[in-house]
């Protein structure tokens, strides 16, 4: 027996040594060697299960999944239970993304050899696959065998999750909740409360949660009283400064009054009650506001804290004015001070005055641009007045040395107010949402806000021209560049500057500024909207590809890891987090930004991968495998189709804009409208992607092995038509869509006819696939479509160029992007149409090839003649080449325009700026702010335009090469 034991131990050691060698090979990714070694081993030891699994792993890593699965299927029938095999199987199924089979493997193994380790693994595998019933059973078995409260918690948490997944109407929900409550009640009653620790807190929290879900509030209170004696200390506790305003009562009364206030049908008694309530409400709010002003107005957070209350529609304008008077007691808001002497005596004075200006901006918005300019000037004066205090603080001469540097720079907020006030007119004239639309819709510069300028109030300013408007924006940019140099960490200034640069189309410049925000990880979802879409539409394709890839990886990595986080929550008994994690998964993975990021990345990839790979090929050929692989067409045609989704989440973070935008209705409307546009865009662009990709793959496949492709093309076509109201004549009905919130603009993509052109071209290609001899006519139709599209767009762009300003340049740049993209897709469709024609010819001559060899030559000669007859004239590439060359010329014209010296820009010079500010600021200060930044900013904008236009030209050149390749290929 001893000898046998020694032999067994020796054999185990030997196996271990061999496995270690194999592990090293696997780790070093020497997959071929793994397979050779395993095959050699298996000849001697055919039952070496772990080695077989390692071979399967090597095959998976060599993309030979079919062979790997064959091995794995056989292995799991043996139900291995040893550590090595189980671990190797876990890795295999993880890499195959097959959690269901792994769950079965663990289940079988834990039945064969019940152990705590295997059973917990089994439970976790079931968590990954959402098998709630099995989770509950496994957890209860674990609890029976090992008596650990955690396992009991697992069982109950599984029940609660199961109940959560059911709708309230489902009878299974109350059953699961009742069962959970009984299990917990029994468990808690059996615990000896006199022992140290008593009931575990996590179990108690589960009990409270179960009761809460059933709305059993009395039982919740009893449980709290019995087991804790006081409520959870981490729950929200109101502060003491303004007790009424943060109570539920405040919100309730506000809701009630608002509800009845506009109801004209209420009787006199109710009305009288309502008035009484309103009076009491206002009295309490007034008392609170007075108290808040007395003790809080010198806090930097005062504005943020107050604004929800002072903005209440229930506060009369008298009350608002009264409130502002209290704030103003210590403010220097009259702006009538000596410029060279500080009007502030301490930082607290500065903070109070900043709060005053912010509240004043929100409560009493300026009616016209001149008042806005005046407000900006006042804030600028205050900024410089405060700067001397801040300088002395920085040098340490101020007595209050506890103030941190950032507080010394708090006066930067004056610059933020000044710049945002100057810029406000560019997107919310008159605070009227319709006004925004009408001015945005009009791409003609002279029509932008002329009707909203209130010229009558200042007749001598009637020469207010477009250049004056540009001038204000330019001034805002200069102020912000100056401010950022003083305080690079002021994110408000940075975000506002990004907005200014993207508004004028200087996206490259905006991109440079945005790097200071250091957007990363989950912030791509909440903050990406500030820059990501403008980079793409601004022509910075390489940066855009990089940005989209990084942003997409956040979601993909999370998708990969999210179940592990859930498992960690189970493992550590954080049962309260389990449902929260489930909710977060839904919120992040259904994010509209995620949908947009994915589809835009894939569309960008489609044009660049397809065109560049094909142009490098001597015989122009679009590789279906490449397209399918890069786009994962099969997946987009499956359950991941975003257009079928009904619910999208909008996780954009608008709290960061609170200092930049007054909390007015138009802004709220814009937020909602752009959110809706994003959802529609995800669906439409996804449909376009499927339309293009499926068409490419369908035509390029040697055999039409997937009949579902045509169906998917039809489905995509119908989605696009339904969503855009696209009729057969190409007109879109359901415009306008909005081009992102920051800054708002109307999306011209549909109006320009980009989408309708591509959709109709796809329709032509479909005809060519179905009809013999339709290839040539298809190409003719497509040529005519693209020529007609370009003709319309060219007129539009030429007209815009004749009145080019920095304000209209942003729109021109986006227009050019839409054209470049449309041309790229058109080129792909031309390639596909030519291929479709050739395929039909090949299949027509296929029967002839099968004839006997003696007749082949004769037959081939007659085929060539008949083919030439059926084919008609060779494809005419001239129209396609012509439009590309014409677009290139136009971009070049834009490139050559000196944006700073064309006539409307005549007064955009330093001397004019100096004159404009004459009497408002001392020359010394003007020199300090504008002079150093002027040349740099102006050059930066011009360079940005140049770089972006160059990128467009490069993309057009790439397309042209592709067309030339097609022509050469077609002639051969």
């Amino acid at each position, binding site marked *: 027996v001893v000898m046998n034991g020694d032999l067994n131990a020796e054999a185990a050691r030997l196996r271990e040594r061999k496995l270690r060698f194999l592990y090293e090979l696997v780790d070093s990714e020497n997959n071929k060697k793994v397979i050779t070694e395993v095959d050699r081993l298996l000849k001697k030891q055919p039952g070496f299960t772990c080695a077989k699994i390692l071979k399967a792993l090597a095959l998976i890593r060599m993309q030979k999944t079919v062979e790997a699965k064959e091995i794995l299927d056989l292995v799991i029938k043996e139900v291995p239970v040893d550590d090595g095999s189980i671990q190797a199987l876990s890795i295999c199924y993880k890499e195959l993304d097959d959690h269901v089979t792994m769950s079965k493997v663990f289940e079988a193994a834990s039945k064969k050899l019940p152990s705590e380790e295997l059973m917990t693994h089994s439970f976790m595998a079931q968590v990954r696959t959402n098998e709630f019933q099995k989770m509950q059973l496994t957890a209860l078995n674990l609890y029976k065998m090992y008596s650990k409260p955690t396992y009991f918690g697992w069982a109950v948490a599984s029940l609660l999750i199961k109940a959560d997944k059911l709708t309230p109407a489902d009878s299974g929900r109350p059953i699961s909740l009742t069962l959970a409550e009984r299990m917990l009640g029994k468990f808690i009653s059996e615990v000896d409360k006199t022992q140290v620790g008593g009931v575990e807190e996590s179990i108690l929290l589960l009990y409270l949660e179960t009761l809460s879900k059933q709305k059993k509030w009395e039982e919740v209170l009893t449980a709290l009283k019995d087991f804790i004696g006081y409520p959870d200390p*981490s729950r929200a506790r109101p502060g003491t400064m303004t007790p009424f305003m943060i109570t539920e009562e405040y919100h309730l009364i506000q809701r009630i009054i608002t509800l009845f206030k506009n109801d004209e049908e209420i009787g006199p008694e109710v009305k009288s009650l309502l008035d009484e309530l309103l009076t009491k409400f206002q009295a309490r709010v007034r008392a609170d506001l007075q108290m808040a002003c007395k003790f809080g107005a010198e806090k930097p*957070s005062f504005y943020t804290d107050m604004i*929800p209350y002072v903005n209440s529609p229930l506060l009369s304008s008298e009350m608002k004015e009264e409130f502002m008077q209290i704030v103003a007691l210590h403010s220097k808001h009259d702006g009538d001070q000596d410029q060279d002497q500080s009007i502030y005596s301490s930082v607290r004075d500065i903070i109070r005055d900043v709060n005053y200006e912010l509240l004043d901006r929100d409560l009493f918005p300026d009616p016209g641009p001149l008042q806005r300019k005046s407000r900006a000037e006042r804030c600028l004066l205050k900024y410089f007045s405060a700067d001397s205090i801040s300088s002395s603080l920085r040098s340490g001469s101020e007595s209050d040395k506890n103030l*941190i540097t950032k507080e010394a720079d708090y006066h930067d907020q004056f610059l933020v107010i000044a710049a945002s006030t100057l810029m406000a007119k560019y997107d919310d004239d008159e605070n009227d949402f319709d006004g925004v639309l009408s001015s945005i819709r009009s791409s003609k510069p002279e029509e932008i806000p002329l009707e909203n300028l209130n010229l009558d109030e200042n007749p001598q300013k009637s020469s207010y021209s477009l250049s004056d408007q540009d001038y204000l924006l330019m001034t805002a940019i200069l102020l912000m560049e100056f401010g950022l140099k003083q305080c690079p*960490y002021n*994110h408000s200034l940075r975000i506002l500057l990004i907005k200014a640069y993207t508004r004028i189309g200087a996206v490259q410049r905006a991109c440079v500024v945005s790097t200071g925000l250091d957007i990363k990880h989950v912030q791509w979802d909440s903050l990406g909207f500030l820059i990501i879409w403008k980079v793409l539409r601004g022509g910075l394709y390489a940066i855009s590809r990089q940005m989209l890839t990084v942003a997409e990886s956040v979601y993909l990595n999370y998708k990969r890891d999210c179940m592990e986080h859930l498992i960690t929550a189970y493992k550590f008994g954080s049962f309260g987090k389990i449902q929260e*994690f489930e909710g977060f998964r839904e919120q992040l993975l259904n994010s509209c930004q995620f949908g947009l990021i994915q589809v835009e990345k894939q569309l960008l990839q489609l044009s660049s991968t397809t065109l560049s790979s094909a142009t490098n090929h001597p015989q122009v050929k679009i590789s279906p495998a490449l397209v399918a692989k890069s786009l994962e067409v099969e997946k987009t045609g499956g359950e991941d189709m975003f257009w079928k989704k009904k619910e999208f989440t909008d996780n954009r973070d608008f709290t960061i804009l609170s200092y930049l935008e007054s909390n007015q209705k138009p802004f709220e409307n814009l937020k909602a409208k752009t959110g809706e546009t994003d959802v529609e865009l995800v669906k439409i662009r996804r449909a376009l992607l499927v339309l293009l990709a499926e068409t490419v793959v369908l035509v390029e496949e040697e055999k039409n092995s997937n009949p579902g492709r045509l169906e998917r093309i039809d489905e995509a076509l119908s989605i696009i038509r339904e969503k855009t109201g696209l009729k057969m004549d190409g007109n879109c009905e359901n415009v306008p869509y909005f081009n992102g919130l920051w800054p708002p603009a109307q999306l011209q993509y549909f109006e320009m006819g980009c989408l309708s052109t591509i959709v109709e071209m796809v329709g032509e290609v479909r005809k060519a696939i179905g009809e013999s001899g339709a290839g040539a006519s298809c190409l003719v139709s497509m040529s005519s479509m693209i020529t007609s599209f370009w003709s319309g767009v060219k007129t539009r762009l030429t007209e815009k160029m004749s009145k080019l300003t920095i304000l209209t340049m942003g729109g021109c740049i986006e227009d050019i992007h839409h054209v470049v993209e449309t041309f790229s897709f058109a080129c792909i469709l031309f390639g596909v149409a030519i291929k479709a024609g050739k395929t039909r010819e090949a299949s027509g001559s296929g029967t002839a090839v099968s004839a006997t060899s003696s007749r082949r030559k004769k037959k081939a000669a007659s085929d060539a003649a008949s083919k030439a007859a059926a084919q008609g004239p060779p494809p005419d590439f001239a129209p396609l080449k012509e439009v590309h060359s014409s677009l290139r010329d136009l971009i070049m014209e834009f490139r050559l325009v000196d944006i700073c010296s064309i006539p409307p820009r005549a007064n955009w010079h330093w001397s004019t700026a100096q004159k404009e500010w004459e009497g408002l600021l001392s020359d010394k200060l003007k020199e300090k702010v504008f002079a150093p930044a002027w040349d740099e900013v102006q050059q930066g904008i011009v360079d940005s335009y140049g770089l972006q236009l160059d990128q467009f030209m490069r993309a057009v050149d790439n397309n042209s090469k592709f067309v030339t390749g097609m022509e050469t290929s077609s002639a051969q």
Partner: protein
Amino acid sequence: MTSLKPFTCADLFKFNKVNFDPLTETYGLSFYMTYMARWPDYFKKIENTKGEVVGYIMGKAEGMGENWHGHVTCLTVAEQYRRQGLAAKLMRNLEETSEHKRCYFVDLFVRVTNCKAIRMYESLGYIVYRTVLDYYSGDPDENAYDMRKALSRDVHRKSVIPLKHPVRPEEIE
């Protein structure tokens, strides 16, 4: 006008105003999720009246035996909400949690140049326990102070007897 609440996953979408601070790091999602899953009691936020996140603390409980302690991984308050005692409120909450978990002490690392933060921790009863050389990577690397505060379980306050010599990061338990 603020309240202290548990930090939830959804707060990750709206903590940007706080994280714009140059000394506040934005970590990968997994990092936050792990803290929420493992030490939910140690992850708290301060919310203003608009429901915005204006500060948060992230920490954990770790160590063995007499080294069982609470650790502050991250503490930050938005610029506009500083000097209102919010950081102290968050720190107190973490200390209470650590007391509840029967920890011996609470510790944290801070850049030796971050004088304001060091002063604040000192005012809350923390002492510099030791210096950790080149703890913060950068150009150049920067030393950290390992600051500690003894909790009631450490009756003899053994955990806060300062070390005389600095240590390397790899020597930290």
